[in-house]
């Protein structure tokens, strides 16, 4: 099967996954306990007529399958729907994607550079002090909850040292994004470093590396080209999945650092029981996740021609 065919088949699978997932999410939001319209006014009750008008405006007075059809109908015309105060979901998403993308890519970059670097360093110095330090450090980093890391970082670097803003995006990239990105990156970075370390150790003891040494290649050639490239395959899979996760799973960090990104939007939308927003955001996230995986599969063949699409 050629790469083009593989891509086509994967895309066809994607469409089916979407329709199913979207419906499930829609129903889940619909069945959340509590009435979203009544809760619009906080603890101040809305007049009955206001509630009735808003219910019919957003089709909440009709059965869920019908609401879903209205939603799909709009979707077919490129309309992602609105929230309960009439703001279009598409606009909200468009306003928030840049924040999340900047955050995710910054975090990913940190993970990639530091994680792979540390892994390589530790793997090549197996059993020595440097290796031990990296191992201990990564265990510690992976076991501290991201919430604790974020709040501590805020207090130390934002309040006491004043190096970074505590919250918000007003100072722009990179200043406003470095601290939150570093906090998210901590966990992924630790995993990548450990993964890379193991992979490097495996590769170093493999037959082809011994052959390379025997051929008289320099350390720089062996490690810099062959070992790194071959060790990178498992790490790459992790990195791709992690990018998908970063693009969608940064709810906590976006909340703590007050970054108006997609994760925060999703969180607010779930709390407000806004079906169209939740489905819109989730769908976008699924697309990102699946595309990231697709890209990895294709990259695998580039790094290691022995891997074929079957």
């Amino acid at each position, binding site marked *: 099967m050629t790469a083009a065919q593989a891509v086509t088949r994967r895309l066809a699978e994607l469409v089916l996954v979407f329709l199913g997932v979207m419906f499930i999410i829609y129903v889940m939001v619909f069945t959340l*306990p509590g009435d979203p319209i009544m809760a619009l006014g906080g603890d101040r009750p809305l007049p009955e*007529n*206001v509630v009735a008008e808003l219910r019919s405006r957003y089709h909440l007075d009709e059965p869920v399958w019908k609401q879903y059809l209205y939603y799909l109908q709009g979707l077919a015309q490129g309309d992602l729907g609105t929230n309960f105060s009439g703001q279009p979901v598409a606009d909200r998403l468009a306003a928030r994607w840049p924040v999340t993308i900047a955050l995710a890519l910054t975090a990913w970059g940190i993970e990639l550079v530091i994680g792979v670097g540390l892994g390589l360093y530790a793997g090549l110095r197996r059993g020595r002090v440097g290796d031990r330090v990296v191992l201990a450090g990564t265990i510690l980093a992976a076991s501290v909850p991201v919430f604790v890391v974020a709040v501590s970082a805020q207090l130390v670097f934002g309040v006491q040292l004043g190096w970074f*803003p505590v919250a918000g995006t007003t100072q722009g990239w990179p200043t406003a994004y470095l601290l939150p990105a570093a906090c998210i990156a901590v966990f992924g970075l630790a995993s990548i470093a450990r993964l890379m370390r193991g992979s490097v150790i495996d590769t170093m003891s493999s037959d082809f590396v011994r052959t390379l040494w025997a051929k008289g290649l320099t350390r720089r050639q062996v490690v810099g080209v062959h070992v790194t490239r071959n060790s990178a395959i498992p790490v790459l899979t992790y990195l791709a999945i992690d990018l998908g996760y970063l693009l969608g799973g940064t709810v906590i960090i976006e*909340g703590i650092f007050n970054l108006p990104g997609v994760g925060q939007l999703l969180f607010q939308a779930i709390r407000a029981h806004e079906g169209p927003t939740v489905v819109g955001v989730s769908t976008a996230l699924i697309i990102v996740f699946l595309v990231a995986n697709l890209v990895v599969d294709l990259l695998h063949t580039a790094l290691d021609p022995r891997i074929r699409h079957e």
Partner: protein
Amino acid sequence: MKARVRATVGVAALGLVLAACGSTDAEDEPTTTETEGPSGSISIAVTDPGQLTPGRQTVAYDFSMAVFAPLTFIDDASEMTYVAAESVESEDATTWTITLREGWTFHDGTPVTAQSYVDAWNTVAYGPNAFENSGQLANVVGYEDLNTESDPATEMSGLEVVDESTFTVTLAGPDSQFPLQVSQAQTAMYPMPEVAFEDLEAYDRQPIGNGAFVMVGEYVENDPIELEAYPEYQGPAPTISAMTLVPYSDTGTAYTDVLAGNLDVASLPPDRTAQAESDFGDRIYAFEAPGIAFLGIPLADERYQDIRVRQAISMAIDRETINEVIYGGLYEPATAFTPAIAPGTPVGICGELCEYHPEDAKDLLDEAGGFEGTIDIYYPGGIGLDEMYAAIANNLRQNLEVEAVATPSTDWAEFYETRLNGDAPGPFFSRWGALYPSQQNTLRVFFVENGGCTNCIPWYDDEVAELIAEADATVDSDDAASAYAVVQERILEEFPAPPLFFETYSYVTSERVEVLPTSAVGNPLFSQTVLAEDA
């Protein structure tokens, strides 16, 4: 308590401090174009408002009060003064004549007239618009006609323009508290300029008001909102020249940002009250607010029907300690059925029943035959109330020797619907923050059927309803206040729900803020903020 003292002294000292620091600020602030007058700006943490039209907003009070001016204003001593109105008067408390002050303009330069008010109120009340705050006008004659199922009217018959600066409001029944109902936090009562009615959606993104501050640029979700002083403003001059309202999704983050000095004012999240004093020292403000929290009792459950059970629960709760430990002493144990800030409130009427008497509580419960099963306290989860309700459950378990647990709902929507349907499994969260400091508002909301907080205290008594109506019809404000106090005597006889706390709304400020004043609605009066001299 330090914070409280400072808040009260602050307003009195306002004029003096102003005189002292007004001129130096002007030199430090190059962005201000005016050479005299107020200068300096502050940044304030807010919840992203979503909707800004006063008749629609639900979380944009700070914005509304800056961009709009009320007819009447009630200060932190509960004294009423006129702002946009020259007078609000009535012979019979049913038909009210509102006379506007001359010379007021909207930010677009058009004059504020009686018609501006009548048009705005009709728009807010018009059913198909579905404006969230339309209920504030429900007492005006003709409100129902704008909210019929089919073919609703567009104008309330109870509103009549007399001349350019006078209009009359006819209410469905006498209501002595009407002048208080047109004060600063009742945002449905604000006027709107003609341009608003041409495109309500566009107006919602950039409201043009009659207040001290003009909104600069359109609203973009989650972007800071910039406000600038309106030079033609006819009301009390603001002490600052600009405000920035910065949306935060997490109140804890806003708190930290004030700590770092990047933000000037944020509300104090409940879960930070214990550490606030060490973080902010005397830069904490606890404003007395027209809010009160009860422990709602599910009276349909026969185990709670004996009044002694309810009294025992009340006396088993150690309000003082909960306040000290969980709220850093910023709250105030409740001793009446309306907030103390509402004039005429019979503070202390609850007596021993609102005090901590664990032995008496146990005896009283035994006398009533004890309690079968578990007291399952139900409260909304995710808004920082966990410690308080866990503490109350502990109090009940230890002092009454009954099983008691506190269970949160998953979110506000679930809690709200459960309470509305009267399905709470046990005693429940029940609070109300009034929008004007009158006993009437709190009494009506809790104790009149469909008064607002439905099933917050599921006890609707004919005698209470009659007494409230009598007080409503009392034109003289002092007499009315005494009449509302009589209602509370009747409530005490049945003791349908233990009062817990008189609420305070608490804020922390950066070092740039010298004095943060407040008004009777308990939130800061940002337009009169006094900045520190070197800010």
